[in-house]
């Protein structure tokens, strides 16, 4: 099947029900998107499908045919995605960094939806993303910093 990932068309051979995550990671070697739970509980695998954040670990690949998939490798080409990545770097948000691809994808989608999010908006949009290192306070600060640049 043909998929559109980060504005490129790629061909993959996979059964329809293969989760998009494994297509990205194992078949295409795009390993920026992470595996964390396999049950849409932790957000590490978050990608955008037509701009909306989704958990690729439970999304059958057949569901994204004809849609635009954006991953951490491509999100920096958007103004919001780039602003989020820059804020993450400037505030030294990551510790181990493993969950941060998913965090950044969730944050970028939030800021497109709500350019000046409140704390409650941030809680609602980001609580599906687990960080075991405990970088939540810096994630919140980085979202606000990126929002400031955004406006």
């Amino acid at each position, binding site marked *: 099947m043909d998929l559109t990932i980060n504005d490129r068309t790629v061909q993959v051979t996979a059964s329809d029900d293969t989760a998009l995550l494994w297509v990205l990671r194992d078949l295409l070697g795009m390993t920026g998107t992470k*595996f964390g739970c396999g049950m849409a509980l932790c957000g590490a695998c978050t990608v955008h499908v037509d701009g909306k954040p989704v958990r690729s670990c439970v999304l059958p690949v057949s569901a994204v045919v004809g849609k635009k998939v954006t991953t951490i490798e491509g999100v*920096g080409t958007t103004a919001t995605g780039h602003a989020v990545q820059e804020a993450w770097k400037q505030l030294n948000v990551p*510790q181990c960094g493993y969950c941060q691809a998913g965090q950044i994808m969730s944050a970028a989608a939030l800021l497109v939806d709500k350019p000046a999010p409140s704390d409650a908006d941030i809680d609602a949009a980001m609580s599906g*993303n687990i960080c075991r290192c405990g970088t939540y306070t810096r994630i919140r600060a980085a979202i606000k910093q990126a929002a400031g640049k955004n406006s």
Partner: protein
Amino acid sequence: MSAVLKPESSLSRRTFIATLAASGGLVVIGSATRILTAAEAEKYGADGMPHGTVDNPLVFISIGDDGLVTIAVHRSDMGQGVRTGMPLIVADELEADWSKVRVQQAPADEEKYGNQDTDGSRSTRHFIDPMRRCGAAARAMLEKAAADTWKVPVAEVHALNHEVVHEKTGRKLGYGALARKAAKLPVPAQGALTLKTADKFRYIGKEGTLLLDGEDIVTGKAQYGIDPWFEGMLFAVIARSPVLGGKIKHVDDAEAAKMPGVVKVMEMPPTVADAEFHTLAGVAVIASNTGAAIKARSALKIEWDDGANGGYDSDLYRAELEKAARSPGQVVRQDGDFDGAIAKAARKLEAEYYLPHIAHATMEPPSAVARIVDGKLEVWAPTQAPQVTRTDISKHLGIPFENVTVHVTLLGGGFGRKSKPDYATEAAVLSKAMGGRPVKVTWTRDDDLHHDYFHTVSVEHLQGGLDASGKVTSWLHRSVAPSIGSIFGADPKHELPFEMGMGLINLPYDIPNIRLENPEAAAHTRIGWFRSVSNVPHAFAVQSFVAELAAAAGKDHRDFLLDLIGASRLIDPGSQHDTWNYGESPKRYPVDTGRLRRVIETVTREAGWGSKHGLGLAAHYSFLSYTAVVAQVEVDKTGYLRIPRVDIAFDCGPVVNPDRVRSQLEGAVIMGVSLATLGEITFKRGRSQQDNFHQYRVTRMDTAPKDIRVHLLPATDWSMPLGGVGEPGLPPVAPALVNAIFAATGRRIRRMPIREQAGAVAG
């Protein structure tokens, strides 16, 4: 009569294994004399670790013709920032321009690089001096190369920000131009080196250092152990025995083998006897992608023989621990006469505290990639123990050590789990079974939560006596917990010196009558190091009990705690029968009660102690550093708990990278909140009952404290030894939280996790 444990001064998480094997278990001797042989006495710090340290600049530093400086980092980065911290130390002494510094991860090779076990909060404390010497030696070599080029005395030149300068003539040469010549010069002897004085530091101790891996992490380019990818690679998951020690009785793989993408289904070969970290019995499914392997695994029909641990039930085990905690056990420290003193106490208090098993749940689950080409095996692994990984794989596969290469990737979280490289061995075993093809093994989240090396479970029983003035005159602490020693052979059934040395035996309080006991506890699952290790249950119990005693005495908790600590003084760990002392010299690292007092004074002042409702305090010495925490909580009428703010004061001596120290403490606060409010693994029929994050819940953004204030008390005196950073933030968080809940509600919580005990706790 008091008993002390056999001295094992330089015990590390690795060396103690050998010691255990040599002694046939834990030996208790009936003597109060602390015996150290001369050899033991000299082997402290990094010198007590396998392969010690290396400070050769030619090993760690390379400089290109373009002037780019590449610094090898031989310690593993799991989020503590060592891949930025180590280069920063070298670059400072090297007088390098930070923008021209790159980092390269060293493979497993301790002969070349020195010890690589990244645990025990000791990378910076053990390697700051060797890394400074590396940088200073390279700087001296560059200066000599420039002086030789200009034919001037070396005393007339000096290095400054990536150039060597000859002041008299104004001549300058960049590091790139000098590199080839400098590399051919002899490395100066240690005694000939001039290290910078602290006022000349360019990067060490300064704010504003960005992470060297920041760009790669935020763009998805960073490589973790789960990420290596090769054409033709295969992907595996393994169905492991759900009970520790269980064996396969029968496998029906007919259905699984037919499923799409499946390449092979095979039983895992038996583990080898002399491995430190054994692979578990199981059935591997190897497929064209991980999703296919997971699906096929669920179609396997396996009959298990559960073996001796098939009856493990964490509720029943808790009752067993409680029973043990209510009877006398092995005495590990005795000061004065507890029995006599408690009999005369004006007021007596008794309490028991429970900490369940917890799982590391690193966001990157255990995973690794291996391939074999021409008899040479390469593995890519997120490992805290590179050399152990290499040794274990060599033993398991019968491949000579020199033909095994371990590439250390970034670790997507470690917390102690990735000191145990069973998953890397699995990848190697499966690659061999597939004729050397690259194979990636991924642990699914349920694998991770079912087969972790769990944090120990414990019951801590305390009794205290107060005199008429409310002063503590007697203290009994019985700690009962299965030991990490159980994973390395015969179960010692007692806490090992390094476990007791984490906040049990080294109680730093000025109490005349103390008895510390350690009754037996047998392990029924894999017990392993979890960030801060035994400090977590010990600090939870001790810091909760101090608050309970303060309340019983009708005194302010802070004042009471400071009184208990007593005057500022240096305590010789040997006088507390602590023969371990984090592997460090008791002379160089005594327990400094003045520093403990200062973090308490600082955190209470900053948090507004005495002027706010719902504040709870705890303080703990661990990993040679001093931490105090004040948590602020609000519990509403329905019992809903909020933690709006946590203050943490920290003294680890001199600080190399303050931003990473703060980030470790911020993380420790959140991990502490997580384990205190939610963390619990339970067992029934020998099986861990939690499958994923809906059952093993962890703190998320919405329930994490929004305001975490870190108060660093960095030493400006660089002759002071460094303390640990990665772990010591964690132990006081949970007790500060339950003490805050007590302050807010009058309800005392003695069992972790708090969950619904404060009412309907958020989570």
